[in-house]
């Protein structure tokens, strides 16, 4: 449209210059002004229009060109599958909001957002929210920004506290809802990301996911504000959040080491920016690997900002976990073991390398392939 307006402007100019009668100039100049204004208007409104299919064409106007390249380079099979996935993000704060943006730009199919907080100027040290959004609920502000970035993503937002009885019920039913993709088995979502900032909310997400047998990832920043982590939780297979009580309870660490005198956790400026940008990146990377099945999905990845140390580990479930839903999932997982082992065996046999047929027995240049490796003495060149 911009191009057409430019053409129109240049036509008007030509017309004006060809007019012998200057009395009409004012009228023409008026017209020119209107067209120029429209052009400016259109420029501000270049929106990304909804698209039908993701195409891999590497052109400026294709928002997915750089993502589809992952497929061309052989990292991901069928990148477009991302449009079928539904991810729930609990907590749209420093970590959660950035995670939603990254997933949106990646072309995720469906996002469910949960938060009851409002945007404030104090949030401006982190990415995503803008000062002019102060006063809006974080969910409304997020939908506003995300729908502009990529209208292809279906956004669902819930401004509620999931820890209350009513909030929890809404949370559960929204996860179960399969209206986005009715063919999914289990829940209506493929993954839940916990980006909350308190123990109580994590326990609630843990409860919900244990009951729904829903895989989820938890992210967090430690109380001493110098490290962060992401964790993958598969009910019954890995430890749930209640399996291992938080550090301070379990190892009897003097609680004072966690809180400096005079700094109340409520106002703790958890603002080490290296963490706030890094953690959502790690979280979404793990998410994409999980959804699109490439690379190794880490069960746990930590980040220690002071030492640049990235520990990983696996946490097995606690057979005496205090969460009864976790114990049930553990039982089910154990019962399903024979079926899993059989499936794994079948997969291995299917992938076993078969005898590769020799393509060229002979060739006119007498080139031979030696399976034994390089033998310097056999070389004819000296």
């Amino acid at each position, binding site marked *: 449209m911009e191009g057409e307006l430019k053409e129109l402007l240049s036509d008007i100019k030509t017309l004006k210059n060809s007019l012998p009668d200057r009395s009409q100039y004012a009228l023409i100049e008026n017209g020119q002004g209107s067209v120029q204004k429209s052009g400016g208007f259109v420029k501000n409104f270049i929106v990304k229009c909804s698209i039908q299919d993701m195409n891999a064409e590497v052109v400026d106007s294709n928002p997915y060109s750089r993502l589809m390249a992952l497929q061309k380079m052989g990292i991901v099979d069928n990148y477009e599958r991302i449009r079928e996935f539904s991810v729930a993000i609990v907590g749209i704060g420093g970590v959660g909001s950035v995670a939603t943006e990254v997933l949106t730009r990646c072309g995720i199919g469906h996002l469910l957002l949960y938060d009851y907080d409002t945007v404030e100027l104090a949030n401006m040290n982190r990415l995503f929210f803008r000062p002019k959004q102060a006063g809006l609920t974080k969910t409304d502000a997020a939908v506003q920004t995300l729908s502009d970035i990529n209208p292809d993503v279906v956004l669902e937002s819930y401004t509620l506290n999931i*820890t*209350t*009885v009513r909030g929890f019920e809404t949370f559960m039913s929204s996860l179960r809802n399969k209206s986005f993709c009715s063919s999914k088995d289990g829940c209506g979502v493929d993954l839940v990301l916990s980006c909350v900032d308190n123990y109580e909310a994590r326990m609630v997400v843990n409860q919900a996911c244990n009951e729904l047998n829903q895989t989820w990832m938890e992210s967090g920043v430690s109380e001493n504000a110098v490290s962060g982590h992401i964790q993958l939780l598969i009910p019954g297979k890995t430890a749930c959040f209640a399996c291992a009580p938080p550090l301070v*309870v379990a190892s009897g660490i003097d609680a004072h080491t966690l809180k400096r005198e005079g700094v109340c956790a409520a106002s703790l400026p958890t603002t080490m920016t290296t963490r706030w940008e890094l953690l959502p990146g790690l979280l979404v990377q793990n998410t994409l690997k999980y959804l699109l099945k490439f690379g190794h999905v880490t069960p746990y990845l930590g980040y220690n900002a002071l030492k640049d140390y990235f520990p990983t580990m696996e946490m097995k479930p606690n057979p005496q976990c205090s969460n009864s839903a976790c114990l049930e999932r553990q039982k089910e997982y154990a019962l399903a073991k024979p079926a899993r082992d059989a499936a794994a065996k079948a997969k291995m046999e299917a992938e076993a390398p078969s005898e590769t047929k020799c393509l060229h027995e002979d060739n006119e240049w007498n080139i031979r392939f030696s399976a034994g490796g390089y033998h310097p003495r056999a070389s004819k060149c000296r």
Partner: protein
Amino acid sequence: MEGWDPTTKSTLTQIPLLSVKAGPRDGGAWTQRLKEEYKALIAYTSMNKAKDNDWFRISAANPEGTRWTGKCWYIHNLLKYEFDLQFDIPVTYPATAPELELPQLDGKTQKMYRGGKICLTVHFKPLWAKNCPRFGIAHALCLGLAPWLAAEIPILVDSGMIKHKDDASSSNES
């Protein structure tokens, strides 16, 4: 229980402990738990009255017992300051303690989260977790709210953030 002041400690030990491990979604078991909660609250209030330190009133705001409202007060320099108190019982109760709220003080102190949820000491959560499900609402008030009031109200009054209702503005306003 290092780190707690002796009065809190001795009071706490006298509040009856609860036994039913049930949350608001556990149907009949929750009703049992509620009965125990009331018993503990009545016992705690009687103790307070006997010590001339009757400092709160709360009751369930809904028949399910998942929302509680009431008032608490604190005496500083011979003046009694009264505040509205409210909280929801979280779905993961009693594993997680209720988040006690003083909505009138929201924004007046750093020791508070959004909506007036009081910031508890570092000692509270580990102690609560270790004693689950024996601690209930009465214990949360004794271990959580009482020390918070004792620590914060004097500061708020002395700095002028809150005024007694007999002064020009009531304690409801800043």
